[in-house]
């Protein structure tokens, strides 16, 4: 099974502060994704990547940046955190063996509280 890890697992930040969420996958998947999960909204895609050096905007990218420095690592950056960004964030990596049959493997999630 794919191994996706996230750090930190829990984070408390102050409004206006910078937050970096990190994700690592050890399965050599090309695709990686960042989602946030909120009650009533389900999983919403923030940013994604097709490989090292690539980042793409998802459905709700405002207020977030992403960085993919290597095949294994994909970071989500909140330059100026706001209370509305309080959420659970999931990273996922994709097994795009056949395009459009992309099974995604999720990390354990990071709980972020912005005060």
């Amino acid at each position: 099974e794919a191994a996706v890890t996230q750090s930190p697992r829990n984070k408390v930040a102050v409004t206006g502060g910078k937050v970096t969420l990190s994700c690592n996958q050890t399965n050599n998947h090309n695709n990686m994704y960042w989602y946030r999960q909120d009650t009533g909204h389900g999983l919403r895609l923030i940013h994604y990547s097709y490989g090292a050096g690539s980042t793409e905007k998802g459905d709700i990218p405002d207020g977030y940046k992403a960085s993919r420095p290597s095949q294994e690592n994909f970071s989500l950056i909140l330059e100026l955190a706001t209370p509305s960004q309080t959420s659970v964030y999931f990273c996922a990596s994709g097994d795009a063996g056949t395009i459009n049959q992309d099974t995604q493997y999720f990390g354990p999630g990071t709980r972020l509280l912005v005060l």
Partner: protein
Amino acid sequence: GDSVTQTEGLVTLTEGLPVMLNCTYQSTYSPFLFWYVQHLNEAPKLLLKSFTDNKRPEHQGFHATLHKSSSSFHLQKSSAQLSDSALYYCASTGANTGKLTFGHGTILRVHP
């Protein structure tokens, strides 16, 4: 744009009764459909996904049939178990992007 609709936010069942969770989608092409399951305090994981050749996918007693005529991919199980209690997401793929569009999710609660 593409969208996935799960009409029920919460489904409560007695153990042993059949399960059906609804999922419909809107798309300008023929996407692949997925069901993901998330147990409490765990990560979402794939439960099953549609095939290209119209076979019915099955896993852990769950199955789903893709009906293109009605744009549906409902999740079914003949007999609910207590361990099936979880949050279930239906999702579809984007056109040649590998991106998934998720529905809002349905919480399934199975009680004795």
